[in-house]
């Protein structure tokens, strides 16, 4: 079976800092996603990509950039971290209707 690896697992940043989160999948899936999950709440779509070098904005794209330079990897950049921001960022990949998630990167901004 495949796996989605997100790095780092925990990320502590400072206000105003640019932070990059990475995601790798070995499913050979075409579509990849970044979701943000605030504590105990739903998942909001930040960016998705349907193939290498494709980028599509989700509902929460403001304040973020993304990059899909290879089919297997999808990175997310927080362009300017907001003070007291705390959230888990989940990467996912899919083929047809099967979606698989990574374990997440937990971001804390001090």
């Amino acid at each position, binding site marked *: 079976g495949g796996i989605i690896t997100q790095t780092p697992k925990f990320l502590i940043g400072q206000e105003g800092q640019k932070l990059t989160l990475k995601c790798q999948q070995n499913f050979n899936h075409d579509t990849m996603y970044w979701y943000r999950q605030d504590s*105990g*709440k*739903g998942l909001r779509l930040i960016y*998705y990509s349907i193939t290498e070098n494709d980028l599509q904005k989700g509902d929460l794209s403001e304040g973020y950039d993304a990059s899909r330079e290879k089919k297997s990897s999808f990175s997310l950049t927080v362009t300017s971290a907001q003070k007291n921001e705390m959230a888990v960022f989940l990467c996912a990949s899919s083929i047809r*209707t099967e979606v698989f*998630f990574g*374990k997440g990167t937990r971001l804390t901004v001090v």
Partner: protein
Amino acid sequence: GDSVTQTEGLVTLTKGLPVMLNCTYQTTYSPFLFWYVQHLNEAPKLLLKSSTDNKRTEHQGFYATLHKSSSSFHLQKSSVQLSDSALYFCALVSNYNVLYFGSGTKLTVEP
């Protein structure tokens, strides 16, 4: 655009009781609905999925029926267990295989 609505944010039940978590959706495409479960500090995992109208789908004691007439896909279980305590998300896949999630329902099962 596409959207999913879950009306209950928090549900607390005693072990052994039945549960129904509501999910309604809006889409202009042929609907494909999912339920995901997320236990504490884990990734969301697929629980159920369906695109067939009026057909019950079951897994691990949970079941749901897609009703296109009412745009609903409610999740049910006849007898909840302590291990069912988790976040439950209803989701809809759109035209480009993008998964849109509802806001989630936190289910807490008490002894």
